[in-house]
């Protein structure tokens, strides 16, 4: 049956879908997979920026669907990985320019040549989300450990189940260990308790993500970054490897350890 279509979705905006898609794409490519990432957020494209490919766009998703461009012409090869491609969203049109059927047709063509087709879904539950969901073999739901994001994720999961694409797996993004310890942020267990979905990744809050996104070099290429490592682990779990979750406890410096010892904690 060829490649696997993985849609990255969230419901709420700003939780890190596009960052997750870019990093996952790069991680999968670095694991030797042939990958294409599709930006389905027509009218508000960003995936190209985060992947540092903005200035290479000639054709886009709508051009392919409306026949102005061949599939291969619109695909942008990544600067570093020869087997990683981007299909950018159109900036000037809206989500109605593409139908769920168009997306299924496109995905089926891509399945023949690629191992993974990642689709970055727009926020919301309307047409854009339907477009991204329809061709999916698996859905990864990105959420933040906060009540409103979890609520929206829950809504999206309900819609994914209703479309028979469920249950999906969860990426918990931007977890702050210190806040969880103080009881000020939901823990990954709390999120699991509400959503009841298996977790495919827990990404710690990491300033390097922002600077990486702004420079167009996704954080997963930075071996110093915990978030980058966590995204790498997600990719390995997606291809079926059994990877243990990393220890996100930050208090491992010599002083903290000493303090811990003295306090008897």
């Amino acid at each position, binding site marked *: 049956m060829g490649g696997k279509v993985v849609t990255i979705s969230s419901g709420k905006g700003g939780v890190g879908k596009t960052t997750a898609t870019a990093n996952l794409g790069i991680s999968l490519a670095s694991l030797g997979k042939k990958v294409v990432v599709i930006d389905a957020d027509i009218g508000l494209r960003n995936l190209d920026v985060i992947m540092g490919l903005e200035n290479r766009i000639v054709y886009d998703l709508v051009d392919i669907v409306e026949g102005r461009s061949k599939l291969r012409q619109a695909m942008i090869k990544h600067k570093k990985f020869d087997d990683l491609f981007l299909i950018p969203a159109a900036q000037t049109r809206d989500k109605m320019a593409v139908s769920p059927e168009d997306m299924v047709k496109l995905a089926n063509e891509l399945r023949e040549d690629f191992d993974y087709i990642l689709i970055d879904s727009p926020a919301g539950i309307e047409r854009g989300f339907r477009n991204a969901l329809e061709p999916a073999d698996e859905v990864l739901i990105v959420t933040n450990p906060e009540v409103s994001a979890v*609520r*929206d994720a*829950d*809504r999206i*999961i*309900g*819609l994914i*189940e209703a479309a028979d694409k469920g249950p999906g797996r969860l990426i918990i993004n931007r977890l702050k260990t210190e806040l969880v310890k103080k009881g000020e942020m939901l823990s990954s267990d709390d999120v699991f308790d*509400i959503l*009841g979905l298996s977790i495919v990744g827990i990404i710690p809050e990491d300033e390097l993500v922002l600077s990486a996104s702004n420079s167009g070099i996704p954080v997963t290429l930075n071996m110093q970054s915990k978030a980058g490592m966590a995204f790498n682990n997600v990719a390995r779990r997606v291809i079926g490897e059994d990877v243990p979750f990393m220890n996100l406890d930050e208090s491992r410096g010599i002083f903290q350890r000493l303090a811990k010892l003295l306090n008897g904690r």
Partner: protein
Amino acid sequence: MQEELIAIKGVNDGLLISLSTTENWQSVTDQLAARIDEQAEFYAGANITVELGERPVPKYELSSLRALLERRGLKLSLVRSESDTTQKSAESLEVPIENHVDVAAPQQTVRETAPVTSEERGTHGVLFRRTLRSGRTIHNDGHVIVFGDVNPGAKVIAGGDIVVWGKLRGYVHAGANGNESAIVCALEMSPSQLRIADFVVRSPAGKRKKIMPEVALVRDNQIIVEARD
């Protein structure tokens, strides 16, 4: 409890609303609006028969009553009245009118119209064997049984009882037709809001220490929640 100026009960094809024939019109309509708003989703779309008795209702009052109902998605489909003034008002507003009072109607209590009647024959309900996630609304005139969780943002509205074999964290309304003997039970009882008939409670803030199966019911005009062992 405040004196009831209105009675709402289910009839075959909609709702019969009886309004006090003596009280100040403003208080009556205010209370009606409040009652409907409390259970807006339950009443939505219903055909309404309004019983006005001997009260003479001028055209502008009747028209504002109709507007009040329409704003809430309800259709005023029949007016029952013995007053000439009211009948004329209804005619000029082209609202269908019936010139008699159903004598039995005001005496019937709401409870008798609830769908739950015979224990021997069993009572009707629906079963959902899945978790109800945010945005999902279940609405049934009988009982509702959920084998799974009711998540925050999900709603269950039942004419009868609600049984949740799982965590109840959303909104539930049992006995939504006014049946105060309805119950709600759950393995974990932490609803965002729980209603039985016209009574409302919220879960206390903060985390529960011990989680156990519990039952919510109305006793002495308030909702109480008790453990079940």
